[in-house]
């Protein structure tokens, strides 16, 4: 699971949960794979990203990447920033670990890079 995917996952499908976002991440195994850099693509994706959630994920994982505290229009044109975003969003992979609902603490295991978001019948909202 890449961090771009984490940025789109929520536990809002659980009964009683309103936002369920961002999910906390606990990683037991991570990988770094390189992905071809496409400036135009990453520049178009950035406005779709919940930046604070991404920073929280970087923090959860203890990644040594410096993301400025706030995003800005000028930053979105900055090559250095775009390259960091490319790396953070697309190159880190959580292989084993879990996602944790911020409201209920419900854990969703990640195995072989696949988050398991299936619910029991009784949990469905």
């Amino acid at each position: 699971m890449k961090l771009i995917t984490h940025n789109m996952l929520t536990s809002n499908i659980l009964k009683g949960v309103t936002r369920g976002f961002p999910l906390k991440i606990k990683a037991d195994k991570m990988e770094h794979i390189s992905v071809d850099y496409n400036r135009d693509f990453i520049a178009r994706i950035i406005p779709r990203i919940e930046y604070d959630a991404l920073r929280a994920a970087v923090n959860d994982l203890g990644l040594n990447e410096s993301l400025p505290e706030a995003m800005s229009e000028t930053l979105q044109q900055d090559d250095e920033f775009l390259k960091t975003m490319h790396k953070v969003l697309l190159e880190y992979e959580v292989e084993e670990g879990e996602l944790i609902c911020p409201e209920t603490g419900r854990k969703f295991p990640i195995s072989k890079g696949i988050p398991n978001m299936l619910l029991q019948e009784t949990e469905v909202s």
Partner: protein
Amino acid sequence: MSSSSRPLTLPKSELDACQLEQEHVHKVYNEIAHNFSNTRYKPWPRVVDFLCSFSNGSLILDVGCGNGKYMNIRNDIMMIGCDRSEGLLKICRDRYFEVFLSDCMNIPVPTNMFDGVICIAVLHHISTEARRLLALKEIVRILKPGGQALVTVWAKEQEIDNKKSTYITKNAKTCPIHTKNETTNELIIHTPRTEFQQPDCLVPWAKPTEKVLRYYHVFIKNELEHILNHISQVKIINSYNDDGNWCIIFMKIA
């Protein structure tokens, strides 16, 4: 496969429906994952056309992505897949696709998120109309206003305007046709490569073990439109038959 020896019937409750789908859809796809994947590698051209209609940097979700055969059509859009079969998702991971395990009736993503959704050959595995409606509502929820979805399902009619689909012209069999016992709502076993006798049936997966039966609800003409009519915020853009499948493209309106 199925542990029970009594014939299967149409679900009478939500629990029945879950059990039928668990036994005759989800378990089956996990069992046949590799075999299925080896026979499903050719993308359908009209699905590819739909994916090509999005602009660079679009976010697209493939609901019921299977082995991910639509996930690398373009490298300038962000494509994520979800499916209920862990076996098929593992195949996606071997190909470095981004996926998560979830049910299409409860997709764990925010409302108004995606520019596009595809849901190809998935809804015909859901065994009640109420649940098929839930799945379509979920697709509408996650689309952003202005976003578009393509949904395709297997058609009950395998012959349109005197033209037989590939499904029934390929390796046509001359097997006995099963018919339904009207009084019990029993699910009949469909004879592969023949016209469908009933909208709800069990379709044998020939290899590797012949006993594997997949549940299908095959759709009649305009059935997708009828279900979509129950959902506000939907504008139908196009609907068509594509070689034995009913297909619909719709937009979420604000």
